[in-house]
């Protein structure tokens, strides 16, 4: 078992976690707060530290939380699990995925280009209006939009999504 991380609270839907700063720095997760050794983490980041870095997570009430407990207790979005799956997949590919600006968005950088990954589940229908609005929001932030489709076994397929004018196609 690795280092111990202690959940000390919840702020704006994120978890306040106390632990050795080098753990957060090495895993490139979380945002440092003004409290000593305390970081603000997305659920998927803490899950990553639990699962991949084998950290022990202790809840506010002193209970040890395993990966499943963490999701049972702190998941607030139906996208959390597939976001975690995609986060892991990207990290396994050597991409430093980080939580993005929406409940199902991750961001990462590759070859100088920053990408916004919109995570969608195999069985969750997608509205074209929602898709276009998300593409626009990613482009406004100067991020290349990528759609990540997660199947029932947790396999992730990625597609870049680009808007074109007819003139661009000839």
């Amino acid at each position, binding site marked *: 078992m690795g280092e111990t991380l202690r959940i000390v609270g919840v702020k704006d839907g994120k978890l306040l976690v106390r632990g050795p700063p080098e753990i957060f720095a090495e895993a490139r997760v979380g945002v440092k707060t003004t409290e000593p050794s305390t970081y603000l983490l997305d659920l998927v980041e803490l899950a990553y530290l639990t699962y991949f870095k084998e950290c022990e997570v202790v809840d506010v009430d002193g209970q040890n939380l395993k990966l499943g407990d963490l999701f049972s207790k702190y998941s607030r979005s139906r996208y959390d699990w597939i976001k975690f799956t995609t986060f892991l997949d990207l990290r396994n590919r050597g991409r430093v995925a980080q939580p993005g600006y929406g409940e199902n968005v991750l961001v990462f950088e590759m070859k100088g280009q920053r990408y916004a990954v919109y995570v969608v589940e195999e069985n969750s229908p*997608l509205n*074209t209006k929602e898709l276009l609005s998300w593409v626009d929001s990613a482009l406004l932030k100067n991020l290349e939009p990528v759609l990540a489709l997660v199947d029932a076994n947790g396999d992730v*397929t990625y597609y870049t999504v680009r808007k074109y004018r007819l003139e661009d196609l000839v």
Partner: protein
Amino acid sequence: MDLARCIFDASFIGKPVGVKKPRGTEEEVNRPLELSLIEAYYLMEKGILKIFKDGKALSLEEFKAVCETHLPEFEDLYKNYKEFKDFGFTIRSALKYGTDFALYKTRPGLEHAPYLVKVLKYGQVIEPGDLISWGRLSHSVRKDLILAVTHQSGLITYVALKWFKP
């Protein structure tokens, strides 16, 4: 037959009867031309074609009703067809690829169609599984998949989906 030859030769609309992959050879263009409903409507709208039923010429509205009976998505499919055609693309059916149109910058025989088009309504709900199928198939035949999201106003937003390895 002369008109059929002329239409096919000039615009590559339709398909000479019994020719699987028309390339515009002399023998091919001497055959009668088989038009899809969309192609026929396009030519009718342009004033190139008249359609008769029981000896009476159909009006554009009457023929549109026929098209809508057979193709529930006719309106959006036609909007897209017209847009591509007027822009200069050659358009073939892409049913075999599970999409609506295959677009050629020039014409079949001279190049492989670089794009497959799936026409969708703005606000339409799509299954991610369908997206995967269209995307996977278009990637396997080395074509780009274009989603033509058609707004009620007539505006069309083109979105290209390309398989990506992060």
